């Protein structure tokens, strides 16, 4: 027969571990929420990444403390993780650079497929933007593949007519979100900005890609004044986040 008193004494050391895990979970949730609030004027893409990063950092700290409470030295573990990370970064430096550049160019670079751009000595119509490179079709019908990292390093000139007018904000919707309701509420929300937008071009929501897990959309707005670009992008991102929460809330 098991002696409960002995078993309790043997398991007592787990109590601090459980407390640490519990506190970590709560803290991760609170930090995620705070970071979400702080980043609501950036794109939902960016805000989501920031939230995930903050949660991972809290989880790592909590995990390290929990290991210490168990009497395991976390030094070796941290060293292995750090070495693996450094090796991966060195080995995948170029692709990761391009991928990262694509990630940021999605959000901040003012061109899209169909535009004509000039980057250094190269110019042409953008026909593809993939995780590694942006592909241009030149006037001589040559394909030019520009590593995405180059687009962050070099000056990019969008030579499409009235390119300054257009702001395209990407948004990824989880598959669980009701797209028709989201679009409808978003159009209502964005119509409040119409004094700042070209009255001939109401906002347009375009489906870029879809899978059972998510739908990638692009919200296109046309500015009335070029100097409003940054403010409109920021405001649109804020409204995207609000509408997303609203539609999710209505579903719950």
């Amino acid at each position, binding site marked *: 027969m098991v002696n409960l008193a002995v078993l309790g004494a043997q398991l007592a050391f787990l109590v601090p571990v459980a407390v640490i895990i519990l506190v970590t979970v709560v803290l991760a949730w609170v930090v995620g929420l705070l970071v979400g609030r702080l980043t609501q004027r950036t794109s939902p893409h960016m805000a989501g990444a920031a939230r995930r990063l903050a949660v991972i950092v809290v989880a790592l700290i909590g995990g390290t403390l929990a290991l210490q409470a168990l009497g395991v030295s976390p030094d070796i573990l941290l060293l292995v993780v750090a070495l693996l990370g450094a090796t991966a970064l060195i080995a995948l430096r170029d692709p990761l650079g391009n991928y990262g550049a694509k990630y940021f160019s999605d959000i901040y670079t003012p061109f899209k497929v169909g535009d004509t751009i000039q980057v250094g000595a190269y110019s042409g119509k953008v026909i593809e933007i993939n995780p590694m490179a942006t592909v241009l079709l030149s006037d001589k019908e040559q394909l030019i593949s520009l590593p995405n990292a180059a687009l962050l390093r070099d000056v990019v000139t969008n030579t499409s007519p009235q390119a300054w007018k257009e702001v395209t904000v990407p948004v990824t919707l989880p598959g669980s979100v009701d797209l*028709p*309701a989201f679009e*409808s509420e978003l*159009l*209502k929300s964005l119509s409040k900005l119409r004094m700042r937008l070209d*009255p*001939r071009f*109401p906002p*347009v929501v375009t489906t*870029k890609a879809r899978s059972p897990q998510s739908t990638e959309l692009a919200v296109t707005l046309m500015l009335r004044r070029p100097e409003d670009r940054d403010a409109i992008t920021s405001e649109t991102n804020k409204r995207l986040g609000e509408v997303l929460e609203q539609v999710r809330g209505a579903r719950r």
Partner: protein
Amino acid sequence: MPALSICINTQTPLVQFLGTNPGTSAPGSPRADLDLAALTEGRDYRYSPGGVTRMVYPLVRRLIHEGVLREAHWVALNPHAPPTVRLNDLTLHNVSIAGDRMAGYGTVKEAIWGRIHELNGVEEHDELFWSEAFSEYAYYNRRTAELIQQLDEKFDFDAFYIHDFQQLAVGHMLGTLKPKIFRWHIPFDAATIPDKWRAMLSTYLRSYDVVVVSAQSYAKSLRQLEPTGKVIRLYPYIDPTDYSHPNAVQVEAVSRRIGLAPEDQIALVVGRMDPIKGQDLAISAFAAVAADYPHLKLVLVGNGSFSGSASGLGLSKSARWRTHLEEMVVEARLQDRVLFTGHLGQEELDSLYERCRFTLLPSVREGFGLVAVESWIHDRPAIVTERAGIAELIRDGVNALLFDPDESGALVRQMKRLLDDPGGKLRARLVRNGRTTARKCSLDAAERAEGEMLAAVTEA
């Protein structure tokens, strides 16, 4: 070419359900899939009268029969229907949206309709695409596109055939590389489009590989919006075998039922109760000739559209318009000479075509005007507005009589030409040539033209 699988999308459903039955939307009843063969036409359901569905259904049936299509799925707005209804080789999928959203959607579609038909001023709905109502129009179109997308994942369609301006945004919302065809059924004159609408309409039109219109002038005008796909003209059509030629006994029975005496002559107007259909012009013209032709009666056939019906969107413009027309008749003291029949079944309508002396198509604007073709296949002469797409097929005095609805007295003049026709020579010529013209708007012609278009777009 291998047989195709296509998805058709219209606003108006092919079949409207009447009342409640085990398969439809009785409160608390299961919304199970339904086979239409299990129900009774007239009691449980009816086919939507006239318009787009009247045209598309025979074509789909024929293309399936001829092996051009392997299967067809038809998505439409049908708030009072089960989600899926089987009808032989055709599967009907019904979209339903909440009443408050329906109201917003209705506002936008009526505004577009009114502007295209020049019933509204250019400035009246300048901000339409920024309005809250537009978000509901987008909602309905997106809901439709989502359903089509789900069906495509299941059935892997070869092409999408979207019909009419109410569905215009669907093509843009369908995230697919497969061919998309859009048929614009109403008139199109770029001059009627407000400046603030052009970019939006252009964005939507550019998402289609082919845009089909009903008249050459519409095609020319629509190209001004710079669609990226082809713009082609295909005449609307009817299946002549859907029309009967009732015998004298049947015609007499229908005539008696609606209050016609044997000596009465009929001028027939067939069209839903809508200001755009110009029934007021017909009443005014009739009032001008009534005293000279004491046996002539004007018969107005038609009710509201799907938009106006209780089983549809519930917009009440048709009832208002009919009241206005009835007031006109009372004012002209013609209550015993002008008859309103409401909606008639096809056989009853065929009886009136057989019974009439001539038909009138007095529309202020008309996408095409298949009523004239119906008149021709019943060997009856037609007097047709110049503002109809079909006018480009008509030579005045050869296959029909044309009139300008804005010209005072023009309709009266043409009615008198037929009423005073010595020896019936004009009538005989119009009937003979009309019958020939009707072949251009027949199902046979459409089968060829639409089949070629589908082949071209799917093989391109």
